[in-house]
């Protein structure tokens, strides 16, 4: 009772994820053994399980391999400029507060060039779900050093090995004020999906880091095999410690990866604080931005 469906059009429609993907753009551009497709799939699965109104979901990506996610999702999706996915998403959210805005981008995009926007959106507790795919490298442009590249790892701009300290992303997010912080590897699909689903139901600046294999650049430049071998490394080195102190979550080169949910707290979002404050100071005269947005029409 097996079936190898080699008629792509049939399988395209039959695949459970098909309604959520732009099937006319499949197959996608990501390399064999790249993990981005897995993360995207878990996000889609989480959306299905969370039973949200998909018409109100907007996805914003930046530039890079992970930045291509927006182009494959059959939702209102935007592929903005490098590093500016978070402020773009901020504009979307403030312009139409009922939108559920997800930022789906890579480590270089979100905390390299986009670092400033990352910390301020976290500080403001902007109501955004940020999924950061961390492959420890700038993949799309050919394997340059990233703010998350572990010490010793090679990259095209650090050909003798990286000597710069990398970010500890959950710590960065938590200390800037994110209200939900978690980390998984792309191997832990079910846990990742559950975390996505939980985060979709929360408000505020939610940050989920997903460690993902990069076969063509990170694995190859560091002679680690392919993404398949990186998945084995995750299998052997991922340790789940919910609630761990974010200060201890650094990742050494081929070292332990501590995963889990680290921060989950309830705090008023930027919009809630804005509304509450204006109501207090302006009383009845305050007119908030309506949830359906500031579109003025006849």
């Amino acid at each position, binding site marked *: *009772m*097996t*079936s*190898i*469906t*080699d*008629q*792509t*059009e*049939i*399988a*395209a*429609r*039959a*695949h*459970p*994820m*098909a*309604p959520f*993907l*732009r*099937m*006319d753009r*499949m*197959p*996608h551009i*990501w*390399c*064999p*053994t*790249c*993990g*981005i*497709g*897995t993360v995207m*799939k*878990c996000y889609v*699965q989480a959306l*299905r399980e969370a039973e949200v109104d998909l018409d109100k979901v907007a996805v914003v990506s930046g530039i890079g391999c992970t930045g291509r996610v927006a182009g494959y999702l*059959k939702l209102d999706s935007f592929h903005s400029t490098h590093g500016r996915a978070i402020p773009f998403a901020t504009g979307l959210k403030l312009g139409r507060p009922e939108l559920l805005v997800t930022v789906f981008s890579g480590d270089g995009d979100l905390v390299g060039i986009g670092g400033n926007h990352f910390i301020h959106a976290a500080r403001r507790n902007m109501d955004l779900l940020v999924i950061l795919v961390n492959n420890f490298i700038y993949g799309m442009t050919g394997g340059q050093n990233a703010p998350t590249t572990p010490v010793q790892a090679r990259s095209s701009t650090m050909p003798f090995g990286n000597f710069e300290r990398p970010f500890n992303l959950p710590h960065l997010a938590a200390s800037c004020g994110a209200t939900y912080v978690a980390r998984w590897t792309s*191997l832990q*699909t*079910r846990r990742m*999906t559950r975390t996505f689903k939980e985060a979709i139901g929360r408000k505020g600046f939610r940050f989920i880091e997903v460690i993902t294999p990069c076969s063509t650049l990170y694995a190859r430049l560091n002679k680690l095999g*392919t*993404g*398949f071998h990186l*998945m*084995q490394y995750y299998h052997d080195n991922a340790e789940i410690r919910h609630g761990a102190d974010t200060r201890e979550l650094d990742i050494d080169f081929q070292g332990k990866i501590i995963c889990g949910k680290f921060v989950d707290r309830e705090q008023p979002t930027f919009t809630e604080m804005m509304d509450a404050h204006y109501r207090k100071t302006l009383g009845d005269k305050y007119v908030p931005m309506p949830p359906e947005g500031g579109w003025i029409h006849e």
Partner: protein
Amino acid sequence: MKYWRKPLDFERVKVPRGQVHIVVERCKGCGFCVEYCPKEVLAMSEEFNRKGYHPPKVVKPEECVNCNLCEMICPDFAIYSVPVTDGQPAAASGSTEKPASGSQDGGMREDDK
């Protein structure tokens, strides 16, 4: 399945059965599904698809318990499983819509072989 002792609810709980569908032309031969299937249902095949990758093949079809791990872990949306009840595979889980306008409509109905 080997049990070290017989579970008390053995009669009541039915282990699910599943049927694996592989989209051969979309597979990039990464091997994740083969490696991480908990029931070792799959193995890499010797065939090539049109792009030159080796897709997986189902070697132990009766072992599939429809856990969907292959579906979740495949980065290329090239494999999924459907539940099998009473010897009949169900239609794929999840609704299917018409593809976005602009894509080719091959005129084929959904096939649940």
